């Protein structure tokens, strides 16, 4: 819809300008001159404009389609042509003599994988991280209360200095999940005394990045609060974590699937949804209100999903610098729910829409190397076939 409408709009605009020009030239000389002057200016700019191409992740596609982003980039003489590709497919798009100017994957793991592949193909790369979003658990007040009563979660400071978010002890929660506890088995679970297992729902780890972030996080917890670094550990822990994916049953494989279930179907299907913080933030910002029962829980520890820019050619570096530093471009990223160096604006805007987010997220871990991640994902994939 987006590009179609835009094309249509541009076509209409062009036709209008042309049509207007013709009528004008016959009647009003001064206006004709004006039109010509504008055209000349446009020509001049056209000559300076640098065209660069990039492969981008779904998360940032709306950002690049934002008319204001396009304008700021053009004002800085960039015309950026982007195509959406899954973050994990990006590394395979690099050939010795054919590659885009930059990649914009979701997550450091994919970023490193791309940089490595690019170096092997003879490119000089640079990495940037213009914005990021923490991984969170979207949940519901009754659920948060049960977890609090069981000392798995505790209220935590959110917007306005109030205790209106939660912090979840991921170690304890993982223990409960692996012990196959049902909600109704937990003490004080009258708000949700159902027979379902306590499980965090995710997307399909074989397909999607947010589930991989979940894997990174749970593997850290199960590895005695250390990032998994060896093949042996990866295999052992991969087997344990596989259980947390397999027992969910059918999982959506597209990026928004899990989040859509959270907002569309609700607590009955998705009591705990592992999502990007910016998914719920943009949802709240666009609607200006959210369900009173919706609440964000921040796993402790947590992990950031960094939007990376990996540049392969010189002009793209300037572009990457620009989106990392330009105040307007950074501010627009905030509108899409991303965090930048200035989180206050995001906290305030979300609070106005009824969603409290944590001003500062601490206790953040790094994901394992992509080889280790690949190893664990492979183990899980094998398990899920059984």
């Amino acid at each position: 819809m987006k590009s179609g409408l835009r094309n249509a709009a541009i076509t209409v605009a062009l036709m209008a300008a042309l049509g207007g020009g013709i009528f004008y030239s016959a009647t009003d000389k001064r206006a004709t001159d004006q039109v010509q002057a504008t055209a000349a200016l446009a020509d001049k700019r056209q000559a300076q404009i640098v065209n660069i191409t990039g492969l981008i992740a779904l998360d940032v596609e709306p950002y690049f389609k934002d008319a204001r982003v396009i304008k700021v980039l053009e004002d800085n003489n960039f015309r950026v042509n982007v195509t959406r590709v899954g973050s994990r497919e990006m590394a395979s798009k690099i050939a010795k003599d054919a590659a885009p100017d930059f990649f914009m994957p979701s997550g450091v793991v994919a970023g490193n994988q791309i940089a490595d592949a690019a170096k092997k193909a003879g490119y000089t790369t640079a990495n940037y991280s213009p914005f990021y979003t923490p991984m969170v658990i979207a949940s519901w007040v009754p659920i948060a209360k049960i977890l609090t009563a069981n000392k798995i979660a505790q209220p935590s400071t959110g917007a306005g200095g109030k205790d209106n978010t939660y912090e979840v002890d991921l170690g304890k929660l993982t223990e409960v999940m692996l012990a196959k506890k049902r909600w109704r088995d937990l003490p004080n679970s009258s708000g949700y005394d159902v027979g379902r297992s306590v499980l965090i729902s995710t997307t399909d780890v074989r397909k999607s990045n947010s589930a991989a972030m979940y894997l990174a996080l749970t593997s850290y917890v199960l590895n005695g609060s250390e990032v998994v670094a060896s093949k042996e550990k990866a295999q052992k822990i991969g087997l344990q974590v596989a259980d947390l994916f397999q027992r969910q049953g059918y999982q959506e494989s597209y990026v928004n699937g899990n989040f859509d279930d959270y907002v569309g179907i609700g607590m009955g299907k998705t009591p705990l949804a592992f999502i990007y913080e910016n998914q719920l933030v943009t949802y709240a910002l666009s609607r200006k209100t959210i369900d009173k029962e919706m609440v964000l829980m921040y796993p402790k520890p947590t992990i950031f999903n960094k939007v990376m820019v990996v540049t392969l050619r010189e002009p793209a570096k300037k572009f990457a610098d620009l989106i990392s530093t330009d105040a307007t471009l950074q501010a627009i990223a905030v509108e899409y729910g991303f965090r930048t160096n200035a989180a206050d604006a995001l906290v305030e805007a979300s609070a106005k829409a009824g969603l409290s987010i944590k001003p500062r997220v601490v206790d953040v871990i790094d994901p394992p190397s992509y080889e280790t991640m690949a190893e664990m994902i492979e183990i899980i994939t094998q398990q899920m076939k059984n």
Partner: protein
Amino acid sequence: MKNALIKKSLSDIGRRAAYLLAGAALIALAACSKETPSKPDTASKATPTVEAGSLTILATSDLRDVEDLAAQVKAATGVQITFKFGGTFESTDLVQNGKAGTDAAWFANAKYLLSDPAGQARVRQQEKIMLSPLVIGLNTSSAKKLKWDNGAKVSWADVKNAAKNGQLRYAMSNPASSNQGFMAVMGVAAAVAGKSEALAAGDVNREAVREFLAGYKLVGDNSTYLAQKFKERQGEDINAFINYESWLLSMNAKGDLKEPLTLIYPHEGVATADYPLMLLNEAKLENYRKVVDYLKTDAAQNWLAEKTLRRPITPDAAKKNAGLFPANQLLIELPFSTNRGVADSLIDAYLNEFRVPIASTFVLDVSGSMNDGDRIGKLKSSLKALAGQDNSITGRFARLNSREKIWFLPFSYTPGTPTGFTIPVAGKLEEKNATFAAIGEYLTGLKAEGGTALYDATLVAVRNMAAERELHPENAYSVVVFTDGKRTQGINMDAFVQGYNAVFAGQKAAKKIPVFLVLYAEGEAGALQQIADLSGGKVFDARNQPLSVVFKDIRSYQ
């Protein structure tokens, strides 16, 4: 969500274009005349029609009630959507094998399709459009008797036990060919297994599934047919209907039931249809996005809620339409096993072990006209397929199953003699193959010549089945009639009706043996329909689709 932001920026672009256009219009008008300039609004309204397009959709048949939305979609987006309808498993088969032939697919539930990598690979994008949980609609009086009314907590084990004890006698679409029946069986298996998570093969409590299916009294493939039969037999031998909430609420709303249905939502959880609209043809991405975006607007979501009683997927519309649905129901979702082996073995067990075995007589027209265009050859090969090894998803479900009895009754001038075969019980593969071979041999031997004693033959078959039922009441009896022309010989319609009624004199409607008729070549639609109406059967049109497809269809009603 992000979408909304995109829309915002989009409408900015749209507006800008509109202003430019309006500006141009102004200038043009100023140059030519002094009339009032047109407003920006009218200009922007014109933009969607600039790029018209189409989107063809393969939809499951329960979505027929959404067809009317096409006009609104067209008006709002410029995209003309056209539907092609099919059964769930038939459609799954088509999509999985890349034979859908449409730009998109819209299923009540695509979990079976998407739990297979081959199916997943066909789907480019998907988005859920609306929701409807699969629930049990029970006669209000029965609900009272069972103390299942007033929001009582009813478990799947209660449901299963009531079915076993004969207190729950339900209509449901065939688990082997349709999503509703399939999800219900999966639900019982999951809930009764006491599993809090997705089932593995070892978890299936076969006895529980068997007990639940003991209450399965009215079989069919599409909900319209079942609703018709349900109305006739409600309170007689049937007291419940298992289907989507939307369907049951609609039946209640029409007000033509003998008594309204109380909706039971088993408290361990339900399986919810989430109606994903799936893009198959990448080239139609733009049109697909337009349609999806429109379907998620308030206007479309409200329409779907009001007209079809499906729950909106967007929270705002859900809030607005909450009054249409039973209140205070926290719908717990049963996890769906991704293990296709579990699903397939359940369906297989249903067909070969759990279900009431089918016993039917196939009345076959072997009059001379069957030699035209090798009709007889086509008939033979499609019947042989039932007794063969068609391993497609639908083929597995359509072929003759263990414990099933089948008679063939060929006719021309006069009815021939019924020749019967019994398919051995599950597990006896060699015997089964030998029986299939014998059926193949029998069919090969059929020759076409002579006239068309249609009604005599049909009546002989009905009598044959009625007599068999006296001896073996445990089977589900039916007659399948295949003819390519008008009756030319033997008794007329009036005599047939008299004869048929005489067989079932003094018996309840439910006791009638249904006659399913295949309309082929020069077959007489009106006469066949009359027999279907009389007997509670159905006419299947084989004039525009392959015979093999029609025979597969019929299997879902037996």
